[in-house]
Protein backbone atom coordinates (compact mmCIF):
# COMPACT_ATOMS: atom_id res chain seq x y z
CA UNK A 1 0.00 0.00 0.00
CA UNK A 2 2.86 2.36 0.87
CA UNK A 3 4.67 1.54 -2.36
CA UNK A 4 1.47 2.02 -4.28
CA UNK A 5 0.97 5.43 -2.70
CA UNK A 6 4.54 6.44 -3.47
CA UNK A 7 4.10 5.40 -7.09
CA UNK A 8 0.76 7.16 -7.29
CA UNK A 9 2.39 10.34 -6.05
CA UNK A 10 5.07 10.00 -8.71
CA UNK A 11 2.48 9.45 -11.42
CA UNK A 12 0.41 12.39 -10.20
CA UNK A 13 3.50 14.61 -10.40
CA UNK A 14 4.16 13.41 -13.97
CA UNK A 15 0.54 13.95 -14.99
CA UNK A 16 0.66 17.46 -13.58
CA UNK A 17 3.55 18.19 -15.93
CA UNK A 18 1.41 17.11 -18.90
CA UNK A 19 2.72 13.54 -19.15
CA UNK A 20 -0.25 11.68 -20.64
CA UNK A 21 1.41 8.28 -20.37
CA UNK A 22 2.02 8.86 -16.68
CA UNK A 23 -1.63 9.69 -16.26
CA UNK A 24 -2.69 6.61 -18.21
CA UNK A 25 -0.70 4.49 -15.75
CA UNK A 26 -2.47 6.18 -12.86
CA UNK A 27 -5.81 5.55 -14.55
CA UNK A 28 -4.99 1.87 -15.02
CA UNK A 29 -4.41 1.56 -11.26
CA UNK A 30 -7.76 3.05 -10.30
CA UNK A 31 -10.16 2.51 -13.19
CA UNK A 32 -11.54 -0.85 -12.07
CA UNK A 33 -12.30 0.36 -8.54
CA UNK A 34 -13.93 3.52 -9.81
CA UNK A 35 -15.86 1.62 -12.46
CA UNK A 36 -17.23 -0.90 -9.93
CA UNK A 37 -18.17 1.86 -7.51
CA UNK A 38 -20.04 3.70 -10.26
CA UNK A 39 -21.58 0.49 -11.56
CA UNK A 40 -23.14 -0.23 -8.14
CA UNK A 41 -24.44 3.32 -7.95
CA UNK A 42 -25.96 3.65 -11.42
CA UNK A 43 -26.64 -0.06 -12.16
CA UNK A 44 -25.75 0.24 -15.82
CA UNK A 45 -22.45 -0.86 -17.35
CA UNK A 46 -22.39 1.62 -20.23
CA UNK A 47 -23.34 4.50 -17.95
CA UNK A 48 -20.69 3.40 -15.46
CA UNK A 49 -18.09 3.26 -18.22
CA UNK A 50 -19.02 6.67 -19.61
CA UNK A 51 -18.96 8.12 -16.11
CA UNK A 52 -15.57 6.53 -15.42
CA UNK A 53 -14.19 8.18 -18.54
CA UNK A 54 -15.64 11.50 -17.45
CA UNK A 55 -14.32 11.10 -13.91
CA UNK A 56 -10.75 10.55 -15.09
CA UNK A 57 -10.98 13.40 -17.59
CA UNK A 58 -12.17 15.77 -14.87
CA UNK A 59 -9.54 14.45 -12.52
CA UNK A 60 -6.82 15.20 -15.07
CA UNK A 61 -8.06 18.71 -15.70
CA UNK A 62 -8.30 19.41 -11.98
CA UNK A 63 -5.08 17.73 -10.85
CA UNK A 64 -3.37 21.11 -10.37
CA UNK A 65 -6.09 21.98 -7.86
CA UNK A 66 -5.46 18.87 -5.75
CA UNK A 67 -3.83 20.36 -2.65
CA UNK A 68 -2.56 17.13 -1.15
CA UNK A 69 -1.69 14.41 -3.70
CA UNK A 70 -1.60 11.87 -0.83
CA UNK A 71 -5.39 12.25 -0.64
CA UNK A 72 -5.86 11.41 -4.29
CA UNK A 73 -8.13 8.40 -3.63
CA UNK A 74 -10.74 10.30 -1.64
CA UNK A 75 -10.55 13.22 -4.07
CA UNK A 76 -11.07 10.87 -7.05
CA UNK A 77 -14.07 9.19 -5.43
CA UNK A 78 -15.49 12.60 -4.60
CA UNK A 79 -15.47 13.37 -8.34
CA UNK A 80 -17.00 9.96 -9.06
CA UNK A 81 -19.72 10.57 -6.46
CA UNK A 82 -20.62 13.92 -8.02
CA UNK A 83 -20.71 12.50 -11.52
CA UNK A 84 -22.86 9.54 -10.50
CA UNK A 85 -25.43 11.59 -8.65
CA UNK A 86 -25.51 14.17 -11.39
CA UNK A 87 -26.49 11.37 -13.78
CA UNK A 88 -28.97 9.83 -11.36
CA UNK A 89 -30.71 13.16 -10.86
CA UNK A 90 -31.12 13.48 -14.61
CA UNK A 91 -32.24 9.91 -15.24
CA UNK A 92 -34.47 8.73 -12.43
CA UNK A 93 -36.30 9.86 -9.31
CA UNK A 94 -34.70 9.37 -5.92
CA UNK A 95 -35.52 6.19 -4.03
CA UNK A 96 -36.35 3.97 -6.95
CA UNK A 97 -35.84 0.36 -5.96
CA UNK A 98 -33.91 -2.16 -7.94
CA UNK A 99 -35.16 -5.59 -8.95
CA UNK A 100 -36.28 -8.08 -6.36
CA UNK A 101 -33.85 -10.36 -4.66
CA UNK A 102 -32.82 -13.12 -6.99
CA UNK A 103 -34.12 -16.50 -5.92
CA UNK A 104 -31.68 -19.32 -5.86
CA UNK A 105 -32.46 -22.87 -6.90
CA UNK A 106 -35.27 -24.69 -5.12
CA UNK A 107 -32.90 -26.40 -2.79
CA UNK A 108 -29.29 -26.76 -1.88
CA UNK A 109 -26.38 -24.48 -1.15
CA UNK A 110 -26.08 -21.21 -3.04
CA UNK A 111 -23.43 -21.07 -5.72
CA UNK A 112 -20.92 -18.19 -5.59
CA UNK A 113 -22.57 -16.56 -8.60
CA UNK A 114 -26.01 -16.82 -6.99
CA UNK A 115 -24.63 -15.43 -3.77
CA UNK A 116 -23.09 -12.53 -5.65
CA UNK A 117 -26.37 -11.81 -7.43
CA UNK A 118 -28.22 -11.96 -4.12
CA UNK A 119 -25.84 -9.43 -2.63
CA UNK A 120 -26.19 -7.21 -5.67
CA UNK A 121 -29.96 -7.25 -5.32
CA UNK A 122 -29.78 -6.63 -1.58
CA UNK A 123 -27.60 -3.58 -2.22
CA UNK A 124 -30.12 -2.28 -4.73
CA UNK A 125 -32.82 -2.40 -2.07
CA UNK A 126 -30.95 0.19 -0.05
CA UNK A 127 -31.47 3.89 -0.62
CA UNK A 128 -28.85 5.61 -2.76
CA UNK A 129 -27.24 7.24 0.30
CA UNK A 130 -27.11 3.98 2.24
CA UNK A 131 -25.75 2.01 -0.70
CA UNK A 132 -23.01 4.51 -1.30
CA UNK A 133 -21.64 4.42 2.23
CA UNK A 134 -21.60 0.60 2.07
CA UNK A 135 -19.71 0.76 -1.23
CA UNK A 136 -17.17 3.22 0.12
CA UNK A 137 -16.67 1.38 3.41
CA UNK A 138 -17.05 -2.32 2.62
CA UNK A 139 -15.77 -2.41 -0.96
CA UNK A 140 -13.39 0.54 -1.13
CA UNK A 141 -12.09 0.43 2.43
CA UNK A 142 -12.28 4.12 3.23
CA UNK A 143 -12.33 5.25 6.85
CA UNK A 144 -15.37 7.03 8.28
CA UNK A 145 -13.68 10.45 8.12
CA UNK A 146 -12.59 9.88 4.53
CA UNK A 147 -16.13 8.95 3.52
CA UNK A 148 -17.38 12.08 5.26
CA UNK A 149 -15.01 14.13 3.10
CA UNK A 150 -16.06 12.38 -0.09
CA UNK A 151 -19.75 12.87 0.65
CA UNK A 152 -19.25 16.26 2.28
CA UNK A 153 -21.29 15.36 5.34
CA UNK A 154 -20.56 14.83 9.06
CA UNK A 155 -18.99 11.57 10.25
CA UNK A 156 -22.10 11.03 12.38
CA UNK A 157 -24.20 10.99 9.20
CA UNK A 158 -21.87 8.46 7.61
CA UNK A 159 -22.13 6.19 10.63
CA UNK A 160 -25.89 6.55 10.82
CA UNK A 161 -26.38 5.68 7.15
CA UNK A 162 -23.92 2.79 7.30
CA UNK A 163 -25.31 1.26 10.47
CA UNK A 164 -28.89 1.46 9.17
CA UNK A 165 -27.74 -0.09 5.88
CA UNK A 166 -25.98 -2.93 7.71
CA UNK A 167 -29.11 -3.68 9.73
CA UNK A 168 -31.18 -3.78 6.53
CA UNK A 169 -28.62 -5.95 4.75
CA UNK A 170 -28.44 -8.26 7.73
CA UNK A 171 -32.17 -8.91 7.59
CA UNK A 172 -32.37 -9.00 3.78
CA UNK A 173 -29.48 -11.39 3.46
CA UNK A 174 -30.40 -13.55 6.46
CA UNK A 175 -32.14 -16.26 4.35
CA UNK A 176 -29.28 -16.19 1.87
CA UNK A 177 -26.70 -16.42 4.63
CA UNK A 178 -28.53 -19.38 6.21
CA UNK A 179 -28.77 -21.21 2.89
CA UNK A 180 -25.17 -20.41 2.13
CA UNK A 181 -24.19 -22.02 5.39
CA UNK A 182 -26.34 -25.11 4.97
Amino acid at each position, binding site marked *: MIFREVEDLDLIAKARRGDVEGYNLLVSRWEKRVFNYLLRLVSNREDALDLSQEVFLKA*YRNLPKLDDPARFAGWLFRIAHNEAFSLLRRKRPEGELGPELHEAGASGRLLPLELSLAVESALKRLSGDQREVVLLKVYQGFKFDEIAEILECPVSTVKSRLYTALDLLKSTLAPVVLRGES
Partner: protein
Amino acid sequence: MNCESYDWKAYALGELDRPARTEAESHAATCASCRNELATLRLTLDTLSTLREEDMPRRIAFVSDKVFEPRWWQRVFSPNFAAACVIAGAILVHAFARPGITDAQIKAQIDVAVTKAVAEQTEAIVARDNERYSQAYAIATGLERQ
Protein backbone atom coordinates in the same frame (compact mmCIF):
# COMPACT_ATOMS: atom_id res chain seq x y z
CA MET B 1 -19.64 -1.15 30.80
CA ASN B 2 -22.85 -2.73 29.59
CA CYS B 3 -23.45 -4.35 26.19
CA GLU B 4 -24.99 -1.22 24.62
CA SER B 5 -21.80 0.74 25.14
CA TYR B 6 -19.88 -1.44 22.67
CA ASP B 7 -19.99 -0.41 19.03
CA TRP B 8 -19.76 -3.82 17.34
CA LYS B 9 -20.33 -2.42 13.87
CA ALA B 10 -17.35 -0.10 14.25
CA TYR B 11 -15.38 -3.08 15.61
CA ALA B 12 -16.29 -5.33 12.67
CA LEU B 13 -15.53 -2.55 10.19
CA GLY B 14 -12.07 -1.96 11.65
CA GLU B 15 -12.76 1.55 12.93
CA LEU B 16 -11.79 1.06 16.58
CA ASP B 17 -8.33 1.88 17.86
CA ARG B 18 -6.29 -0.79 19.64
CA PRO B 19 -7.35 -0.02 23.25
CA ALA B 20 -11.02 0.04 22.30
CA ARG B 21 -10.63 -3.21 20.36
CA THR B 22 -8.93 -4.92 23.28
CA GLU B 23 -11.64 -3.80 25.66
CA ALA B 24 -14.41 -4.95 23.31
CA GLU B 25 -12.75 -8.35 22.86
CA SER B 26 -12.46 -8.78 26.63
CA HIS B 27 -16.15 -8.10 26.96
CA ALA B 28 -17.12 -10.42 24.08
CA ALA B 29 -15.17 -13.23 25.71
CA THR B 30 -17.61 -13.16 28.62
CA CYS B 31 -20.85 -12.12 26.83
CA ALA B 32 -22.67 -14.62 24.61
CA SER B 33 -25.13 -11.99 23.36
CA CYS B 34 -22.38 -9.68 22.08
CA ARG B 35 -20.49 -12.64 20.58
CA ASN B 36 -23.64 -13.58 18.72
CA GLU B 37 -24.16 -10.03 17.47
CA LEU B 38 -20.57 -9.84 16.28
CA ALA B 39 -20.80 -13.22 14.57
CA THR B 40 -23.96 -12.16 12.70
CA LEU B 41 -22.28 -8.93 11.59
CA ARG B 42 -19.22 -10.77 10.34
CA LEU B 43 -21.40 -13.22 8.46
CA THR B 44 -23.21 -10.33 6.77
CA LEU B 45 -19.91 -8.64 5.86
CA ASP B 46 -18.52 -11.95 4.57
CA THR B 47 -21.61 -12.38 2.42
CA LEU B 48 -21.26 -8.83 1.10
CA SER B 49 -17.66 -9.58 0.16
CA THR B 50 -18.86 -12.28 -2.26
CA LEU B 51 -20.04 -9.56 -4.64
CA ARG B 52 -18.01 -10.09 -7.76
CA GLU B 53 -15.87 -7.26 -9.01
CA GLU B 54 -16.87 -6.57 -12.58
CA ASP B 55 -14.29 -6.32 -15.34
CA MET B 56 -14.43 -3.19 -17.40
CA PRO B 57 -15.99 -3.53 -20.87
CA ARG B 58 -13.00 -1.63 -22.20
CA ARG B 59 -10.02 0.09 -20.71
CA ILE B 60 -9.84 3.83 -20.24
CA ALA B 61 -6.92 5.50 -21.94
CA PHE B 62 -6.18 8.98 -23.06
CA VAL B 63 -4.20 10.06 -26.06
CA SER B 64 -2.39 13.29 -26.42
CA ASP B 65 -4.77 15.87 -27.82
CA LYS B 66 -5.49 19.52 -27.21
CA VAL B 67 -6.93 18.74 -23.82
CA PHE B 68 -3.75 17.03 -22.74
CA GLU B 69 -1.20 19.09 -24.57
CA PRO B 70 1.01 21.09 -22.24
CA ARG B 71 0.03 24.70 -21.64
CA TRP B 72 1.96 27.43 -23.43
CA TRP B 73 4.09 28.09 -20.37
CA GLN B 74 4.90 24.38 -20.12
CA ARG B 75 6.07 24.50 -23.72
CA VAL B 76 8.18 27.60 -23.04
CA PHE B 77 9.96 25.81 -20.25
CA SER B 78 10.43 22.56 -22.14
CA PRO B 79 14.13 21.75 -22.85
CA ASN B 80 13.80 21.61 -26.67
CA PHE B 81 11.93 24.86 -26.92
CA ALA B 82 14.34 26.58 -24.56
CA ALA B 83 17.33 25.37 -26.62
CA ALA B 84 15.73 26.65 -29.82
CA CYS B 85 15.11 30.01 -28.16
CA VAL B 86 18.74 30.27 -27.05
CA ILE B 87 20.01 29.57 -30.58
CA ALA B 88 17.58 32.06 -32.16
CA GLY B 89 18.56 34.65 -29.57
CA ALA B 90 22.25 34.13 -30.26
CA ILE B 91 21.67 34.66 -34.00
CA LEU B 92 19.76 37.89 -33.38
CA VAL B 93 22.36 39.20 -30.97
CA HIS B 94 25.11 38.42 -33.45
CA ALA B 95 23.20 40.17 -36.23
CA PHE B 96 22.52 43.35 -34.29
CA ALA B 97 25.61 43.52 -32.13
CA ARG B 98 28.06 42.94 -35.06
CA PRO B 99 30.47 45.99 -35.42
CA GLY B 100 29.24 48.31 -38.24
CA ILE B 101 31.33 49.55 -41.26
CA THR B 102 32.54 53.13 -40.69
CA ASP B 103 32.49 55.93 -43.31
CA ALA B 104 36.30 55.98 -43.44
CA GLN B 105 36.31 52.28 -44.31
CA ILE B 106 33.73 52.87 -47.04
CA LYS B 107 35.82 55.75 -48.43
CA ALA B 108 38.95 53.62 -48.39
CA GLN B 109 37.13 50.83 -50.22
CA ILE B 110 35.93 53.35 -52.85
CA ASP B 111 39.46 54.73 -53.20
CA VAL B 112 40.87 51.29 -53.77
CA ALA B 113 38.19 50.53 -56.34
CA VAL B 114 38.77 53.86 -58.18
CA THR B 115 42.54 53.43 -58.18
CA LYS B 116 42.17 49.95 -59.57
CA ALA B 117 39.76 51.13 -62.30
CA VAL B 118 42.04 54.06 -63.28
CA ALA B 119 45.03 51.75 -63.48
CA GLU B 120 43.13 49.32 -65.67
CA GLN B 121 41.96 52.11 -68.00
CA THR B 122 45.46 53.63 -68.19
CA GLU B 123 46.93 50.28 -69.04
CA ALA B 124 44.31 49.76 -71.77
CA ILE B 125 45.00 53.22 -73.30
CA VAL B 126 48.76 52.67 -73.30
CA ALA B 127 48.32 49.30 -74.94
CA ARG B 128 46.03 50.76 -77.60
CA ASP B 129 48.47 53.65 -78.28
CA ASN B 130 51.36 51.23 -78.58
CA GLU B 131 49.41 49.18 -81.12
CA ARG B 132 48.55 52.30 -83.16
CA TYR B 133 52.19 53.39 -82.97
CA SER B 134 53.33 50.02 -84.28
CA GLN B 135 50.84 50.14 -87.11
CA ALA B 136 51.93 53.71 -88.08
CA TYR B 137 55.58 52.68 -87.92
CA ALA B 138 54.94 49.73 -90.23
CA ILE B 139 53.09 51.93 -92.77
CA ALA B 140 55.88 54.57 -92.73
CA THR B 141 58.55 51.90 -93.21
CA GLY B 142 56.66 50.50 -96.21
CA LEU B 143 56.34 53.87 -97.87
CA GLU B 144 60.06 54.56 -97.48
CA ARG B 145 60.88 51.26 -99.25
CA GLN B 146 58.63 52.22 -102.14
